[in-house]
């Protein structure tokens, strides 16, 4: 009984500790650490076109493996990250990028949150200013029927 509890308590810790090594899907051997880092960044940025909600780094399907191989080959051939991204976008469209680029077609996507934030802040500021004015006028004209007023005056 106590053992079960201990195991249950340690399980999340064990799972967390194991995360950095959970790379069984995309094991690679790039010649340098710099290339390895670029490779890792790239495969996390592309969508697996078959599972669609997973990145190339996390997808177990064989098409994703082929795409990772393509990326590896291009990296080894000296292509820049930009060239690799362009290669995939020109064949699969912007859909393959997890982070949509800022182009005319996606401008509204990027700008809408900012605009909404501005509208929200503007509205909030208006409301707050009106409320502040309300409080001030209340203090200026105390209600004679309010018992608290008397207490405050006596306290001064």
């Amino acid at each position, binding site marked *: 009984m106590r053992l079960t509890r201990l195991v249950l308590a340690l399980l999340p810790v064990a799972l967390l500790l194991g995360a950095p090594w959970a790379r069984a899907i995309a094991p690679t051997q790039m010649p340098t650490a710099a290339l390895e880092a670029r490779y890792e960044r790239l495969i996390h940025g592309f969508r697996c076109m078959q599972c669609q909600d997973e990145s190339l780094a996390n997808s177990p399907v064989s098409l994703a493996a*082929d795409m990772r191989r*393509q990326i590896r080959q291009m990296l080894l051939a000296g292509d820049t990250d930009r060239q690799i991204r362009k290669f995939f976008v020109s064949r699969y*469209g912007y859909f393959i990028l997890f982070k949509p680029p800022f182009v005319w077609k996606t401008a509204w996507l990027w700008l809408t949150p900012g605009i909404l934030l501005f509208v929200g802040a503007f509205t909030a500021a208006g409301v707050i200013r009106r409320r502040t004015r309300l409080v001030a006028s209340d203090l200026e004209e105390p209600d004679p029927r309010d018992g608290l007023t008397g207490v405050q005056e006596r306290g001064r």
Partner: protein
Amino acid sequence: MIRRFIPLLVFVGVAALLAMGVMQAPRKDLVPSPLIGKHAPNFSLPSLMHPHQRVSSTQLNGHWYLFNVWGTWCISCRQEYPELLAIAHTGIVPLIGLDWKDTRGEALAFLSTKGDPYQRIAFDPGGLEAIHWGVYGAPETFLVNPKGIIVYKYIGPITPRAWTEDILPRLPASATVAGS
């Protein structure tokens, strides 16, 4: 007084926008290809039937052709197979196959029992050529014009209806079969 209705108007506006988005959302399994209207990838791959010969894009220029990506492991490809044989039988446009991530033995056995609709078949066991064509599942079929431009892409098994309504109208009336 009208100010009271502003939140309601905003809500209706956002709801309408979202409803439009949901209704017009394209099917997620049909990703439009950015290659349409662009030049088909240049390639040179070993022939499936004759390992020492090559199938290349230069042989195909100057003719209309259907570039069909398939594999014996692909169930939908088996589904569309009768239609491919029917298309080949019309002689209107040659079928060029890309045998994708397959083994030569299985592919040859399949073709010899089911019949071969293809004029040429390029062999891509590693799967890297298909990436150049933006392929993300089989079957996928590209219609390429004599200038080598991809005119149309059909995703999924070709049905008789897809042939008569989507592919045939895009071919000129005088389309001829490329010499083999």
